[in-house]
């Protein structure tokens, strides 16, 4: 059942490295990522491709949170779509109100709406600061409430995964049912402006890309600090032996809750920035399938490693675009296969390959001649 518990009980050599922070390497990686995102990508990619990359980077933000919650905390969060959606809708609601202009209703409400004025729960999102704060705080608050119920009742493993997935389904279904106030299946579409900037202008699209890249790097730095803090060590301990942690005087529910809430915050931010990058948020982007896709990227790259989760998320999102352009029908199957293969044969993800090869080599050289390895 490694699937649901991170990768515990693995022989020490195989378990995800939590042993060293290796700050020098981390700084080098961080610098390389910054150069790639801020210099190479804008130079090398067309506006269209850069826009796609912005979308992938949003997926990577979700993966940053998944790395913490699942990779480190063993919480298989199969419902990150909920938090992605909360952040996305919070942002989109504000942008729709702003697009409509003062006193007017957003376009879809004029089409389907029965009300002649903005629903009460839309109104706070008219304020840009409130909306911005809500993109992060709303998902975190929802995660805090849900999480404290779930973890105090000691729901874990597969049950936690199923529960979080059911939440994503429920949220998407609820949104679809509220055609008049959420746009239903269509979602909130055709978003024109981003805090006064016209999103049709490629220059502004580029700006959105840079904002997204900066936020991603910031989130990576933040979660990296968490992972290497004492809290991060405790989180791994909870993943590997929750009961033992309890006997040391900690409440594991609180430890898990922090990881869950942080992961919800990163997903919310990702959803919020996804909206100006893509111009739309709809139930199809936050339901079960996208929720699983968020997890697949992290699993393929390496869920316990930040670099692995981020690169995996970007890679899988890119592969989805590339392959579904060629073989639209086959992508879903391929994706499912990828997930199973990654979990069954490479629990540490692609980033663990290097280490495995290195150890194989070391073992082979350590053996006297002809030893079977």
């Amino acid at each position, binding site marked *: 059942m490694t699937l649901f518990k991170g990768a515990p009980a693995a022989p020490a050599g195989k378990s995800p490295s*939590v042993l060293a922070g290796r700050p020098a390497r981390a700084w080098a990686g961080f610098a390389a990522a910054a150069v790639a995102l801020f210099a190479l990508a804008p130079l090398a990619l067309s506006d269209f491709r850069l826009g796609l990359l912005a979308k992938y980077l949003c997926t990577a933000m979700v993966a940053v949170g998944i790395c913490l919650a699942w990779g480190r905390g063993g919480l298989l969060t199969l419902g990150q779509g909920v938090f992605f959606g909360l952040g996305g809708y919070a942002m989109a609601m504000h942008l729709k109100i702003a697009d409509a202009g003062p006193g007017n209703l957003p376009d879809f409400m004029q089409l389907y709406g029965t009300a002649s004025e903005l629903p009460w729960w839309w109104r706070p999102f008219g304020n840009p600061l409130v909306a911005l704060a809500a993109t992060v705080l709303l998902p975190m608050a929802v995660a805090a409430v849900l999480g404290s119920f779930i973890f105090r009742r000691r729901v874990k493993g597969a049950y936690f995964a199923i529960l979080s997935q059911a939440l994503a389904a429920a949220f998407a279904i609820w949104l679809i049912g509220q055609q008049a106030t959420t746009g239903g299946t269509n979602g909130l579409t055709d978003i024109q402006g981003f805090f006064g900037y016209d999103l049709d202008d490629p220059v502004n699209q580029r700006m959105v890309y840079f904002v997204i890249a900066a936020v991603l790097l910031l989130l990576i730095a933040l979660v990296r600090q968490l992972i290497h*803090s*004492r809290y991060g060590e405790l989180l791994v301990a909870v993943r*590997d032996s929750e009961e033992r942690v309890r006997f040391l005087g900690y409440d594991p529910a609180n430890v898990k809750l922090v990881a869950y809430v942080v992961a919800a915050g990163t997903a919310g931010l990702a959803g919020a920035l996804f909206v100006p990058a893509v111009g739309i948020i709809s139930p199809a982007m936050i339901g079960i399938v996208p929720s699983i896709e968020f997890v697949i990227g992290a699993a393929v790259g390496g869920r316990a490693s930040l670099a692995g989760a981020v690169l995996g998320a970007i890679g899988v999102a890119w592969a989805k675009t590339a392959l579904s352009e060629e073989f639209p029908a086959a992508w879903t199957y391929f994706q499912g296969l990828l997930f199973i293969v990654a979990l069954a044969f490479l629990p540490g993800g692609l980033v663990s390959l290097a280490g495995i090869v290195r150890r194989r080599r070391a073992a082979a050289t350590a053996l006297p001649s002809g030893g079977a390895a």
Partner: protein
Amino acid sequence: MSQLSGLEIRGLRVSFDGFTAVDGVDLDVAPGDLRFLIGPNGAGKTTLVDAVTGLVKAQGSVLFGGAELLGRSVHRIARSGIGRTFQTATVFEGLTVLQNLDIAAGAGRGMLTMLRRRKGVPEPVARALETVGLTDLAHSPAGTLAHGQKQWLEIGMLLVQDVRLLLLDEPVAGMSHDERQATGELLEHISEERTVVVIEHDMDFMRSFARSVSVLHAGRVLSEGTVAEVQADPRVQEVYLGHAAAGDAALGSAGPTLPDEPEPSGGTASGRTGAAVQEV
């Protein structure tokens, strides 16, 4: 180390679906005692420890340093100064020895400390590493330790947790003779500052290191006293002979004078064994 505290158990009763595992146990462990709990399989020893540490629900009363423990949650009982180990060593295998100890030391840490990186080796952790003899292995993953070393790491974790009562469930099971000797000496050392309760099946180990003994049988306390007193108790002999027909490791058949034959083993350990046996 604040002050020594004792354990006072009155009328403790634990039932699972009609089966009574602990059936009205009264037990006093004096502050600073090194108490051994022995008894045949199913006597309720581990369940007793489970009840004291909040893992199973129980009726009766468990006072530690005058404060009632029953009804509190596991982590609160742990914070009130009670630590335990399990029959199978449970350390965090993916973390280093140092990280294991640092986590054990940290239940009282504030938010800010938790969110920062560990800098160096905290002083209590360094002391515990020294005490349990794992200083050289501080940066090894706990999963690579030998069985005995894992048990010592667990004891070290209780030390940095600064518990005043250690409840150890078969700490020397599966250990070599030398390791058992070292563990016994470690427990003697620890009990100078803390109260220690050990569940054990190894009678030689018990004879060598117990300061007092309680014999449990079928969920009740059958006998209590020094090793000699307990060994002389005919009821204890009967229980043990009844269970261990061959009488190999049986307490009653062994008798108080049977010397603990030191296996041919190195240096300091056997010297101390001799002394411990003579005390008995």
